[in-house]
Each structure stands twice: as C-alpha cells, then as structure tokens.
C-alpha cells in the first residue's frame, strides 16, 4: 500500500510540475464555462444539466491529454525499466498512476464549483442533481482515464497515445448513440447501447445515479486497468 501511495504522490505532483497542466485547467474552465453560460439566460433554468451534458465531449479531448504521458514517457525515457525492477508489482504501479490521474481530473472538475455557486446566488437550484452529476462525471472520467492509460502503455509516442486514446473513446462513445444504433441490425442494438459510454451518461446528466450505470463505469475502469497491467506484463512473454 505504501508503494501505491508513493507512486500516487509522485505522479500527482508531476502533473503540476509542468506549466501545461495549468494551461489545460484554464482552457477547460474557460471553455466549459463559456459553453455553459452562453445559452444560460435564454434557457433561464437554475440547473447544471447542460453543463454535465457537455462533459462527455469535453473529456474526449481533455482526458487523452492527461493520460498520453502516463506510460509513453516512461517507455521513451526507459525509466520503466528501473521502475519495474523496484519492489513493486505491475498492478500497484498501474493503480497508483490511475488514481493520480483521477485526482488530477477531480481537481480540475472541482474548480468548476463557481458554476453551482453562481446558481445558488442567482436562483434556487436543487442540490441533489448537481451533486449526482459531479459524482457521475468522475465515474465516467475514471473509465476514460483507464482507457487512456491503457492506450498509452502501447506506445512510446505521446502524440500517438493521444490520438489513439481519442479514437478508442470516440468509438466507445458513439457506439450507443442513435447515429449508430439506427443503422445497426436490431439484434445488436442492445449490446451497442450497453457498451456505449454515452448511453450511460444520459441519466447521470439529469442527476440521476442509476446502479447499472455505476456498475458499468466501474467495470469499464476495472477492465482497462487490468488490460493495462497485462500489457506491462507482456514484456515477460516476448
């Protein structure tokens, strides 16, 4: 457990060493605030449904940027060779890195707290859906991050890691979207909408936390973290 904590701390602080992290946080906040507040007074409703509706799309670009460095940098600078000869198991390293990226995402999303504060100042919103929405956003973010880190473990190139992660996430997103499901054979539709990252966010967007969605996101996270550990272990069977 101590080793996981050590890796978590190292990874988490390393996000903040480079100025890119701050640039990203600022871009994220300005972008989401702008998109949310532009139609805000037209809609004239004190809720955050539209804000949470943006997040799957914003995460599609934001999360690969967080995770692209994860393994690609370790492989390129060969630090992975030292890291994996220290007394840590592959799984501990994977988990440490994952939670560090989740913490970074949580910090970024938490900084959007200005939006609910504004809502409470100018209106009378229902806090339940807002809290539910934030919790759901983190669950979805966790699944995205696990995918991004897994992709990053397959390449030495951060740009490749970004693009591939984007592609994998995009496919998993739209697979359950009507754009795809309208054209797929009827037999496959339930499977596709079950697998789609997007479909499971619809009720979370409304602030409703459904156990099925929670289980879905947690298992997606678990599966990709497992695959990540597997891909590290693949050096052993070469």
């Amino acid at each position: 457990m101590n080793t996981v904590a050590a890796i978590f701390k190292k990874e988490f602080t390393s996000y903040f060493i480079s100025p890119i992290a701050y640039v990203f946080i600022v871009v994220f906040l300005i972008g989401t605030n702008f998109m949310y507040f532009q139609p805000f007074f037209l809609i004239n409703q004190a809720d955050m449904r539209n804000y949470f509706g943006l997040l799957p799309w914003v995460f599609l670009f934001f999360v690969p940027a967080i995770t692209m460095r994860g393994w690609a940098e370790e492989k390129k600078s060969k630090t992975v060779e030292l890291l994996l000869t220290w007394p840590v198991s592959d799984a501990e390293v994977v988990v440490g890195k994952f939670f560090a990226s989740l913490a970074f995402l949580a910090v970024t999303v938490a900084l959007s707290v200005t939006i609910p504060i504004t809502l409470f100042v100018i209106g009378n919103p229902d806090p339940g859906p807002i809290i539910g929405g934030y919790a759901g956003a983190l669950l979805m973010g966790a699944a995205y991050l696990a995918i991004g880190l897994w992709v990053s473990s397959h390449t030495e190139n951060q740009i490749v890691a970004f693009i591939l992660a984007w592609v994998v996430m995009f496919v998993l997103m739209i697979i359950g979207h009507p754009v795809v499901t309208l054209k797929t054979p009827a037999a496959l539709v339930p499977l596709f909408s079950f697998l789609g990252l997007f479909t499971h966010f619809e009720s979370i967007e409304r602030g409703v936390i459904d156990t099925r969605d929670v289980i879905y996101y947690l298992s997606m996270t678990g599966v990709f973290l497992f695959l990540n550990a597997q891909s590290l272990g693949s050096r052993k069977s070469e």
Partner: protein
Amino acid sequence: MSEKTGRLMLEVRGLNKRFGQVRAVSDLNFEVRRGEVFGFLGPNGAGKSTTMRIITCFIPPTSGSVLVDGLNTADYDLAVREKIGYLPESTPLYADMTVKEYLAFVGRIRGLKGAALKSRTDDMFSVCALAKMADRQIGKLSKGYRQRVGLAQAMIHDPDLLILDEPMSGLDPNQIIEIRNLIKKFGEEKTVIYCSHILSEVSATCDRILIIKDGRVVVTGTPGDLTSGHRGGGSRYTVRVKGEAESVLRSLKSVAGVSGVEAEAATPEGWICARVNTEGKEDIGEGIFKCIADSGLSLSELRRDQTSLEEVFTELTGGNR
C-alpha cells in the same frame, strides 16, 4: 566473516533467453560470491544487459534459473528485488523531479519512511557528493551528476547486491575516478556486478571477471589469471638494437628459452625493433642483454611486455569479424 565469503550471492544456472529467433543468452552459467566485485565484460550486443534484466526480474528467462542469495527469481520476485540495487544502462531518471524529491520517492518505494528515510537520503547525499544539487531538477544536471543520482538511487536501501550496467559511459576521467572509488568503497562490504566494455576500468576495480560473447561465457577468472594465462603461458620482450637485421635475429634466436623472433624493418639510422616470444614464464631479460652485448651491438630498449586485458579481450571476442 566466514559466512560472508562462503555464501553465494548470485547463482546463474543454464540461463537461456530468446527474443523470437534471436538467442540473446545461451546456456549461461556463473556464480558470484558474497563481497566480490564481479566484472561482466563483453562487446556490445553480447547479452550483458539482457542478463542483467533477467537477474533484476525485469524479464524472465526462456529457461534456466537465477538465484539471488539463495532465492529463485521465478518464485520470490519481490523479495529478490528488495535485495538488489540496479543502475540500468543510460541511467533512466525522472527528469522533471529534483534530486531530493527523486531520492525520497525511491526511498519510499523501497519501504523506507520517517527518520530512516531521512537518514538514508542524507547518507546518499554525502556518499555521492550530491548535497549541492539537492534542489536541482535532474534533467538539468550534467552527465556526471546524473550518474551519481543513479548510483544513489541504487544504493539508498543498502542492497546486498549492486548491479551497475555501463556506469562509466559518457564520464570524463575525473568523474570516472570518483565513481570508481564509490564502487570500491561499496564493494568492500557488499557484492557488486559491474557490466562494461571498458576493460581498464574492470581490471582496476574487479576481483573476478567474466567475458561473454554472443550470449556465451568465453572465459572467467581474476584479471591476473586472464592476462598471464594467455598465449600459452609465454611472455614477450621488445628489443631495440642497432645492427644488421640477419645477425640480430640469429643471435636473439640463440638465447635460451626463446621460441620465436619477429623484426620490423630497420630505421634509416639502423635501429631494429624486434619482438621476442618466450616459451616459459621465466625472466630471460638478462640472457637477451648478454647475447646482444657479446655480439657487440648497441641496445636502446629492452622491455618485457605485459599482456593487457584489451589483447585478451580482442582475441577472445574476435573483434567484429
């Protein structure tokens, strides 16, 4: 003390490693005793780094076994890693961390905490002379300092076995001497495996040497064994005399114990440089001198040549043919 020298720190038994069709290591057998500084030599691509990666549990062997302090790497992966300190080739470090942060991180991974962590990091700062650089980013350090951070990282948990893969590459002569002293100091109590292709380094620091080529052991022994046991046990003299080539050769051949003489063409002044090979190890310098003096030739140089480890190495590993 007897326990220290008696037990084996590392046993490598029938080690094989294949990468697809390529055999990186073939049937490698060797052992390293406790308290030894062991030189692991070979030309580039001989399988040195692969062997080290197997010993440090980064990759498993295709077949064969490695025992570190009696523990099999296949069964006691994490326990073996705790006993080993490893500095890989090219010294991979996290460039964006400061030296202090990095050593604290490695210490925590190694299970150190609180006062123990503090005292071990302080020790490393003084042993590796890094105190001045504590708050610098590793990426901004010179090669020599990076190397010291790499060594500090490998020694922070006071490992029983220290494995260094090409620790001197890219260092200037002064830095090499500093690092060599560090290794020697550490090697007084602990076991060190030192991979290199710089032979003078190895002969200066190591108690025992193993030379590997194409993944196979070519020869193993002390630096002394390797240099003296070479060329059938004979030795060689270089003689510079002034005189007619034929008569010089004839008189040198007549000296007792000489097995052969080769001479280079004479200089315009008439000096001839001859190489005299002997059959046995005994010193025949006096005989050569007397023979030259008796034939009335002038002598400007008479030297017994030391076979260098370089020659042994080049001969055994066959250059790049």
